[in-house]
């Protein structure tokens, strides 16, 4: 799919935002593990990381139609 200039910027910004979110999620995960939380306690946080990683990968692969609804609005097929 060919992206216009606006869409290209939107993708770059979204990739940047997701990378930051993942870094924050991982930092939070490691901090809580350091404070003694068990892996079972942190399954929810792990799910969030998984979702963000998945969205990031879809963006990087250009599979925009599989992205969540709000972001997909910028890529009408």
């Amino acid at each position, binding site marked *: 799919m060919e992206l216009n200039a606006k869409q290209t910027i939107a993708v770059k910004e979204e990739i940047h935002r997701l990378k930051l979110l993942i870094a924050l999620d*991982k930092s939070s995960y*490691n901090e809580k593990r350091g404070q003694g939380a068990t*892996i079972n306690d942190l399954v929810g946080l*792990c799910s969030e990381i*998984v979702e963000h*990683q998945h969205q990031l*990968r879809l963006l*990087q692969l250009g599979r925009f139609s599989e992205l969540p609804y709000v972001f997909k609005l910028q890529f009408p097929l």
Partner: protein
Amino acid sequence: MYAHLIRTESNATFTTGTMSFYTDSRSPMFSVRTLERPWLNNMRKISCIPCGLYLVTKRYSLKHGHHFLIQNVLNRDAILIHRGNHVHESQGCILVGMGLQDCDGFKNNATLDSRKAIELMDLELPESFNLFIQ
């Protein structure tokens, strides 16, 4: 730390097991379930890999996301631990999940929450570790 994969069931279509991770002091960390190809004499693309001790290292690619490379597998290349739900998604690699389920009523097992299992491994495991497959 190290990992221990115990293969619990093997038939003509798949091999299932449990991969457990332990600290250097042998305390259990966590476990994931595994799904592999059946044992077909280590034939490329269609057989699971032989039992033994392997060095495993972390990697990332757009195709597989976070995954792990199993090094120095006899007569095999690019054997990975990666996400995937069905045995046909593996060409000898080890698929991992938080659980296994009977996906079609014919006991063709599928992994559950595979991405979560890989993410957990990425968060918890060091850059390289030993894997003993039994």
